[in-house]
């Protein structure tokens, strides 16, 4: 227990901030994922074959390639890409991009592929009559989408999005390889300096369990809220 003390003698406060970092990265990544889903879901549902192909390539590649490899691509490639752009403007020093941004972006792209599939499935399972009824009511495109389609999509998508959230939360542990101090990295540091890996990794597991447990409870509430009227 002394190992978990707050302050200089223990690792309690460090692990606490690391947990906050994990939550922050997960939420940012989930949000970036939603942005990607916002772009790629319409492409998936589009009748244009070429747009379909682009969206399908995105989801297929991301879901078929290990997360760790994607993270390495961004970690090593991100710096290179930024330095390349900088060199065009005549800046040739080494630039290090923030591990938080790289990590959140890499996980966000992965999470986006899963979210895209969830939204596609949800929109496709909405009854055709709903679209027709919206047309008959004379709603314009935005009204149709925001008032009729989106609320129903959310209701159907929330259970699956909660799975995506769980996956995203657990994937953030992989960002530790880039040096971002989240739960996994902090446990690694603590385990190294106290030579007590069993305790710290088990504690990390407990923290992750706690996060998944609490978020499940919150999402269940959301689910109830969006199922009003059913």
């Amino acid at each position, binding site marked *: 227990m002394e190992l978990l003390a707050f302050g200089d003698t223990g690792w309690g406060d460090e692990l606490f901030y690391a947990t906050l970092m994990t939550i922050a990265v997960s939420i940012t990544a989930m949000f970036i994922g939603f942005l990607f889903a916002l772009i790629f879901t319409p492409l998936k549902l589009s009748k244009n074959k070429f747009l379909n192909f682009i969206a399908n390539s995105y989801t297929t590649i991301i879901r078929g390639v290990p997360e*760790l490899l994607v993270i390495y691509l961004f970690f090593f490639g991100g710096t290179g890409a930024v330095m390349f752009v900088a060199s065009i403007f005549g800046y040739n020093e080494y630039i290090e991009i923030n591990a938080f941004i790289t990590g959140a972006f890499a996980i966000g792209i992965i999470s986006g592929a899963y979210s895209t599939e969830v939204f596609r499935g949800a929109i496709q399972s909405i009854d055709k009559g709903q679209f027709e009824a919206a047309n008959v009511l004379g709603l314009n495109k935005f009204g149709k989408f925001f008032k009729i389609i989106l609320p129903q999509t959310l209701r159907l998508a929330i259970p699956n999005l909660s799975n995506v959230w769980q996956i995203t939360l657990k994937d953030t542990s992989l960002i530790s390889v880039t040096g971002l101090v989240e739960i996994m990295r902090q446990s690694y540091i603590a385990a190294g300096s106290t030579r007590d890996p069993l305790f710290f990794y088990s504690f990390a597991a407990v923290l992750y369990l706690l996060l998944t447990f609490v978020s499940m409870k919150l999402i269940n509430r959301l689910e109830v809220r969006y199922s009003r009227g059913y």
Partner: protein
Amino acid sequence: MDLELMINSFPKLLSAAVITLKLLSVSLIIGLFIGLLFAILRLNKNIFINRFAYGYSYVFRGTPLLVQIFIIYFGLGQIEYLRSTVLWAILKEPYWCAIIAFALNTGAYTSEILRSAFQTIKPGIIEAGKSLGISSKVIFYKIQIPIAIRQSLPAYGNEIILMMKGTSLASTVTIMDLTGVAKYIISTTFKPIEVFIVAGGIYLFMTFIIHNFIKFLEKKYSFN
């Protein structure tokens, strides 16, 4: 684009892919047994056995695979008692530690898949078996298990692909699998995009094969 690097690294990555496949197949086989065992325990009416099986799958599905590997590889070695037993011969090898972690992880997911498959079997089928005078043991092995396996094929196919991606974490405990070698080449050449295309292509090819193999099995064992 450095085409030469791509061509040169291809054979290295391909031979590393063999290690990935080895890790995958061994852990899937062990995981399937663990999954089946825990799915049966989950259906047990004894509340303690039931809870124990649920706890197992909850813990392994609720924590990242990376934590599980680290606990087994770095953590278990710390227990003095384990070092003196025969188990230490296995636990000091990163390869076996990775396999134990993967097998326990996929076992947890497989148990959930099989459990829900068992639960969706229509009671009429079991009753039909009973009314034919078949013993409940035979009903279980000859009727319930084959139907459950067929039911769970699509979900299990997803699990195989997820596990294949999961084996990339073996590279964090010094195993030179496909991702490990890819990372090594990236960090020595600083050409991440080229290496990613080749390594990612190999992974995608394996995903493609697994996906189609499962589709083939689904068709072969479909009820219609």
